[in-house]
């Protein structure tokens, strides 16, 4: 009897505890959605001008829990708005129409969630122009959260992306777009990957716990501002990867960002391009030109605050693509706030420290070739290799408000003759470079394996088999028509660089 009473008492206390706990902390679904913690400026008038995306001229299609987003996209016409209500959606959404807006509706902190359950590869793939994707939680995909495939005039805004495999937000080969107010974590390559793009603004995003936070790669006219990049392996990167069809990366402004404690162990696939980024990298500039770095707060990055390098020092095989110019030229380092960087640098940096009799690693380090670079007031920082840097003529980048264009650009040409090339640029080269290992095997290897066998590629990419344990799984490209796959296979086999 006594024992029974005791048990009853324990149960009662437990129940009261749960009740109080719920009262105090609220139900699980009431936990407020995260907002970017560091910057909270609201949209300025004039935001997104000239993109065209998000301009709704057609009907509104509502998608409720239990129904399919893809079905709604199927029904939509250009100019329509698709509103997605809270619920869990297990699917891959393909958007091949122009001017489609995909908008999540967040109700009392409950997000519409796309969950790939670690089975599906991509959450959203768009090839249309003028596509808007906003307010979605995306998680547990194996390849990409949101990938653009040669779509122009895009807006990717206020999405919450957790562990979606290789890339989080990836507007490949897109012109005139904005990526803003997204939060991304747990991405094993680049959280935000601006690949082969022109005219893009990346701002107010928070990226943490990724291998690469924000990556501007083989892109031109990019403005990266007001982002919070912390606890990645590398925070913000701008570089030129050899072997991609676009052979330049220039005119990038990186300003007003907070780049903090990017000391996470590199968990990229061994041998992939990003696997070579040393942990503790605040910013990395490699073989990119005309980069301006202004008014960032860069602190607590254990390898170096800002690293500026050429291919040689970075160990990139330049011989594989002579057309990619290997040096970082005309780097402009304006005023930045830097402190407490370089507490635990890699061996190569340590070797340089020895020659400088420094016990601490650098705020800024420049190695390898390059010309025309400058720095304002270098005495503020601990720097290595800036001896040849001149005093900058420029003092600020105030004149640049945005790199978006005044009006939407025309869609890319998709005539049949161009189909193979467009698909290669917009889809394949996201993971395959010609002569180096980006994510998947290099194209020259694929050429050796499929010599005179375009059909072999056509069949494989529709239904790939995972053959390489140390590479991510190739996602099926069966959403491309056989004709398109054939065109891209032949284009791929004809490449020489």
């Amino acid at each position, binding site marked *: 009897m006594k024992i029974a009473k005791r048990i009853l008492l324990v149960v009662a206390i437990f129940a009261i505890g749960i009740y109080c706990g719920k009262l105090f902390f609220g139900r699980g679904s009431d936990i407020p959605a995260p907002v970017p913690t560091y910057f909270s400026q609201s949209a300025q008038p004039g935001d997104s001008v000239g993109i065209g995306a998000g301009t709704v001229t057609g009907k509104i299609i509502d998608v409720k829990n239990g129904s399919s987003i893809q079905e709604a996209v199927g029904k939509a016409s250009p100019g329509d708005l698709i509103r997605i209500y809270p619920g869990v959606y297990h699917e891959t959404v393909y958007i091949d129409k122009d001017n489609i807006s995909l908008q999540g509706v967040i109700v009392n902190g409950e997000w519409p969630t796309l969950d790939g359950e670690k089975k599906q590869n991509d959450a959203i793939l768009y090839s249309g122009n003028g596509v808007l994707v906003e307010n979605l939680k995306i998680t547990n995909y194996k390849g990409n959260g949101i990938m653009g495939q040669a779509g122009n005039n895009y807006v990717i805004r206020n999405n919450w992306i957790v562990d979606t495999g290789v890339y989080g937000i990836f507007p490949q080969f897109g012109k005139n777009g904005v990526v803003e107010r997204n939060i991304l974590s747990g991405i094993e390559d680049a959280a935000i990957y601006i690949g082969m793009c022109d005219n893009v603004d990346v701002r107010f995003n928070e990226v943490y716990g990724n291998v690469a936070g924000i990556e501007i790669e083989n892109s031109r006219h990019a403005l990266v501002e007001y982002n919070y990049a912390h606890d990645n392996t590398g925070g913000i990167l701008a570089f030129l990867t050899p072997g991609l069809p676009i052979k330049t990366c220039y005119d990038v402004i990186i300003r007003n960002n907070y780049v903090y404690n990017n000391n996470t162990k590199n968990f990229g696939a061994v*041998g992939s391009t990003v696997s070579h980024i040393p942990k503790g990298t605040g910013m990395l500039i490699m073989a990119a030109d005309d980069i301006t770095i202004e008014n960032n707060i860069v602190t607590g990055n254990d390898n170096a605050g800002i690293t500026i390098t050429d291919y040689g020092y970075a*160990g990139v095989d330049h011989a594989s693509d002579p057309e990619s110019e290997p040096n970082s030229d005309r780097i402009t380092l304006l005023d930045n706030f830097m402190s407490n960087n370089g507490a635990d640098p890699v061996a190569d940096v340590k070797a340089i420290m020895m020659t400088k009799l420094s016990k601490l690693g650098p705020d800024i380090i420049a190695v390898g070739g390059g010309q025309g670079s400058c720095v304002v007031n270098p005495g503020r920082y601990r720097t290595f290799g800036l001896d040849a840097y001149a005093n900058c003529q420029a003092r600020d980048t105030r004149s640049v408000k945005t790199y978006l264009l005044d009006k939407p650009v025309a869609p890319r040409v998709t005539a049949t003759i161009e189909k193979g090339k467009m698909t290669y640029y917009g889809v394949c080269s996201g993971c395959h470079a010609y002569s180096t290992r980006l994510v998947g095997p*290099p194209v020259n290897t694929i050429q050796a394996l499929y010599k005179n066998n375009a059909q072999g590629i056509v069949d494989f990419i529709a239904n790939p088999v995972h*053959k390489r344990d*140390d590479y991510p799984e190739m996602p099926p490209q069966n959403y491309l028509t056989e004709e398109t796959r054939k065109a891209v296979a032949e284009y791929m086999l004809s490449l020489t660089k």
Partner: protein
Amino acid sequence: MAGRFWFSHFVLALVFWGCSSKESKKDNPQQDVAQLPVGDPQVGKTLYATCITCHGDAAQGNEKLKAPALANTDNWYLYRQLMNFRNGIRGYQPADTSGYQMAAMAKTLKDSLAVSHVVAYIKTLPQVELPSIVKGDLKKGERTYQSICGSCHGPGARGNEKMNAPRLNGLEDWYLKSQIAKFRNALRGAHPADKFGAQMVPMVTLLADEQAVNDVIAYIRSTTQPAKE
């Protein structure tokens, strides 16, 4: 009665099917190579006596005789190459001196079953450790390996059967070097039936110069040699 009628037809059909499949195997040496019959290591041991002269009693190889170590090589790959030698698609050119010798030796094995016996015996031998002679820049070699070799030969040069790519880290550096040269000089991978060898031909041209070859081989030799399952 009817049952027996069907049964006899069934047997006939089986016989015909058997013949026709044998026929197609003869037509296509690669197909024959693809299937590895189960070998008997005891029989293989007797047959291996011929191989000892060059490859050594522990299949440890002998550089002076240009005979590579075999003990560390996967059985599916040994089988395929022995069949290639036998079928005249590897080592068929007199200019390929060592390969030409090997082709003659491989032909002393009566049939594919005899080949599989030998392979089964070699698989009973313990792994051998090999000296590294070629010097190179390991860091550069690793990058080169990752961008040129690794997508088929696998992480740590362990080989990948799904890609039909053999393990490399169990072979001597001089042997790797000689084979790269043979692929380069159309002494290997040049026969139209050598589908997988042909894939190596464009790949070796990507190794820019002798330094690149040395670097990548030094890297391959530096990778650990994991025990086989």
